[in-house]
């Protein structure tokens, strides 16, 4: 039971990195990045590949984050002038491409076979073989990301970010270089998603392209919206509640083939319901305009 709780908390921590970073993008900047999972994937693969080559954990995960950022930065150039829904589909397309590449660039990613034997983190000689220690690592990253993101959204820069969400033209007319701001937001968002990917990879010790499909976005998106747009606190709470929610399925005794898709169905249905009945979510002050 205790092992299960620890596992569960680790999942919440990793998911939080994903949801908080997506919240920055959607809730604060108005960038509906449906390709967020791509950055998760890039982070996961980079960190794993580097570790398998012998790099130490801290460097590999940092580089994973930076690489994700870099790709986000590149992606922002063609997509910056796209309006909300077009931006959404374009970023989703990017997610597909990343999936496709991870599937086909076999010499790098081992394709559908995935990467096996990703080592547990080795920090200054201390190997985190026990889950409880890994949990502390995740909590560290969680706290770091929450604090950084809070700092960003409360800063003058964060104010400009939100202004872009509310009215990009008005922001431009006040002299703000909105393209630069959007680029930065996307990069920061991707950075934390990349770290999440790295943590996931080093926890499960195995990843393959199917770990990072577009479907994986639904729980994240669902949490971001239910928690409420524009609220980091809401996102955190929602992550906790919603990762918890489908767990009873496990105890009812469905086979593992069914649990995966069943979870997605729950999240998808929840998302649709929230959009219909309470688009502001729990702590949001506004909804997707």
């Amino acid at each position, binding site marked *: 039971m205790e092992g299960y709780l620890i596992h569960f908390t680790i999942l919440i921590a990793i998911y939080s990195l994903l949801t908080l970073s997506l919240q920055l993008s959607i809730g604060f900047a108005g960038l*509906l990045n*449906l390709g967020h999972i791509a950055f998760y994937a890039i982070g996961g693969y980079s960190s794993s590949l580097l570790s398998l080559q012998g790099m130490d954990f801290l460097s590999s995960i940092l580089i994973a984050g930076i690489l994700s950022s870099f790709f986000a930065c590149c992606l922002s*150039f*063609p*997509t910056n*002038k*796209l*309006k*909300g*829904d*077009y931006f*959404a*589909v*374009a970023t*989703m*397309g*990017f997610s*597909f*491409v990343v999936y*496709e*590449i991870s*599937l*086909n660039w076999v010499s790098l990613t081992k394709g559908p076979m995935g990467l096996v034997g990703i080592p547990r983190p080795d920090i200054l000689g201390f190997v985190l073989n026990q889950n409880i220690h890994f949990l502390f690592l995740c909590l560290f990253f969680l706290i770091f990301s929450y604090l950084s993101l809070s700092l960003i959204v409360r800063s003058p820069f964060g104010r400009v970010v939100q202004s872009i969400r509310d009215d*990009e*033209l008005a922001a431009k007319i006040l002299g703000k270089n909105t393209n630069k701001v959007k680029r930065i937001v996307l990069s920061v968002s991707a950075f934390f998603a990349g770290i999440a990917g790295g943590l996931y990879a080093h926890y499960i010790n195995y990843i393959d392209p199917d770990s990072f*499909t*577009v*479907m994986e976005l*639904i729980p994240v*998106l*669902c949490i971001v*919206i239910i928690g409420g747009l524009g609220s980091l606190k809401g996102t955190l709470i929602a992550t906790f509640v919603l990762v918890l929610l489908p767990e009873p399925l496990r105890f009812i005794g469905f086979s593992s*083939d*069914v649990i*995966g*898709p*069943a979870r*997605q*169905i729950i*999240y*998808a*249905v929840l*998302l*649709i319901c929230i*959009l*219909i009945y309470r*688009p502001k979510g729990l702590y949001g002050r506004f*909804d*997707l*305009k």
Partner: protein
Amino acid sequence: MYFLFFLFEGLEFSFWVSALVTLVFSVLVGLSMNNLIYKQLRVRGANKVILLIASFALLIMFESVILIFFGADVKVIEFLKIEKGFQFLGAVITPLQIFIILSSIVLFFLFFSFMKKTKLGKAMRAVSDNPEVAQIVGISPEKIYLWSFLVGSLIAGFAAIFISLEQNLRPMIGTEIMVKSFAAAIIGGIGSVPGAILGSLLLGFSENYGIWFIDSGYKDAIGFGILLVFLIFRPRGILGLKKGLGE
């Protein structure tokens, strides 16, 4: 598509019956999606973005249901067995493919004249342009949405049948097709029916031609690459109107 599979392979109805029932099912699903979900959202003042997310959620939901009931492995609908094809301009083409191409052309033609000539088609374009003004002129946007779902699902049903015959079935195929259709629509130009056709053809050709040079697994990536190029240099697409972009 999976419904067709279910009827044909599972319950072993004859193909034509299965196809027909599938079309009906398709339309029913489309209409219920409209009434249960989209209408609710519209009533509450949803904007395009919310509708998009809802669509995305629906897509994932359906794919998950399919995963549960049909499993993740690839399925095939064995109707027209693979026959020897004819030689045509140096390539091989099967009767099935000819059938699909011809049916598609007929459907395109029907759809195009529908949109351009019939009262309903014109009403649809009016609502797409400006729902409020259309209302003033006496067109009911809700009714139009109903009809668009009907026609749209019907055409999608045909597409599903064709694809099932020509290719095999995978659960994720819905998402793949959606992204590619969107890319095709953008490349060809939003708001233009000939544009959609042009975009799809262009996309299809470049993907299949491109894999002569690049690993065939990257087929989809080629499409996305072209989409990106268009987005940077000509977001309007080839034949499109100026809707839907930044200021």
